């Protein structure tokens, strides 16, 4: 998959020009979002006939159906919930252990231990990863470890779609795909607080190993970024 070499069909280009940036649909009762990031993501993985996609959010019927109907194989791993469950278990374990050993556990140590069980996929396995806005909810010390693992799991030329808030998110949402350019934001019980607002410079450093990136900024100042391996 070569980002620069790919030629976009004229119709798609025209549609992209008509939709200058992602935005939340006005007047719509459901909380949906027109996503140019998703459209670009799908365009980038469209070269692979039976590609593999990893969704790091919760499993949704609509998202699974969307990719399966297009001929992709989809894996899901609710990364944030898994992390929270792991953290809870670890805190309980440490509460008992600290009194004996007095060991100080850093976030980096936790991340390494977490990755012994999570994101266990073969190298160069996925053609696309949907990370949504999860990285905003992880401790900034943990994010590099996650990205390193995702980078390894990505096929050369694979792409990661991520969303970054420009200010602390007021409400916790989960995301599911409605169609090829629409995402539904599903309000969910907060399982994690918004941890960090990444600046563009930070993102460039975090995704330094990736070949290139493209970002769409919405009217709500949410950045939809694509990073290509």
């Amino acid at each position, binding site marked *: 998959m070569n980002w620069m070499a790919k030629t976009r069909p004229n119709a798609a280009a025209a549609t992209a020009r008509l939709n200058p940036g992602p935005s939340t649909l006005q007047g719509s009762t459901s909380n949906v979002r027109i996503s140019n990031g998703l459209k670009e993501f799908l365009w980038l993985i469209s070269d692979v006939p039976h590609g593999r996609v990893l969704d790091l959010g*919760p*499993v949704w019927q609509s998202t699974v159906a969307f990719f*399966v109907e297009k001929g*992709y*194989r989809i*894996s899901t791993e609710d990364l944030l919930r898994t992390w929270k469950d792991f953290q809870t278990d670890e805190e309980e374990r440490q509460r008992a252990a600290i009194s004996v050993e007095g060991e100080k556990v850093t976030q980096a140590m936790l991340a390494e231990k977490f990755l012994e069980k999570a994101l266990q996929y073969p190298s160069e396995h996925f053609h696309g990863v949907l990370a949504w806005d999860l990285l905003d909810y992880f401790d900034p010390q943990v994010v590099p470890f996650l990205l390193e693992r995702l980078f390894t799991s990505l096929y050369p030329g694979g792409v990661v779609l991520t969303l970054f808030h420009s200010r602390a998110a007021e409400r916790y949402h989960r995301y599911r795909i409605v169609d090829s350019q629409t995402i539904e934001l599903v309000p969910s019980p907060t399982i994690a607080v918004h941890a960090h607002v990444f600046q563009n410079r930070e993102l460039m450093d975090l995704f330094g190993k990736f070949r290139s990136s493209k970002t769409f900024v919405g009217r709500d100042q949410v950045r939809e970024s694509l990073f290509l391996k």
Partner: protein
Amino acid sequence: MWRKPNEVKPSSQPAGSPGSVPNQTKTVSPAAVTTESQPPASQTPVVPAPVPYAPVQHNVPAPPPVIPAPVTKMAVARESTASSRIGSGLKIRGELSGSGNADLLVDGELQGKIALGDSRVTIGQSGRVQADIEARDILIEGSVQGNLKARESVHLGSTSRVQGSILTPRIGIDDGARLRGKVEMIRASDAGASPAEPATDSDLLRPVHARSTEA
């Protein structure tokens, strides 16, 4: 409609035969029930057919009344599919296999393997399973750690927790379900061909909720 009103329809079954055993649950019209003041009908070789219940008076003490069990949905289901259940207090280790359509409901704990190719396997809300499951239909409401392979469909309920890959021609996922693993759609005809195994590029993907019509 072709018979005169007073004409008695001949019966091929004489009274007193097994067909007229008391307590049989048949619909009996009140007019057809023989009362005690009437003579026993068993003496006559031909009796009207719609009199299935004719109590014969003997000098033996009457048996205690037997109340016929009501025919419930559960009883019908048990007769037709012979469902098996692993209750919530049970723990089983090993392999469960079988043929036929003996459906299985797991509310307890199970470790090992479930291979019931023609059956429906249901993991109840309190079910905890560490096993690969192979069945016709798989319905999960509890927790499963293992690969699921269904010949027809997999359904993940809202309380389900699944860790493993899913191989099926059709899948249903309720909101709230938790899945950590891969979803692959296969042809219905391929689903029973081989055990669950890692995916290959040659696997043909099928649409969700679209039953395959190809051979």
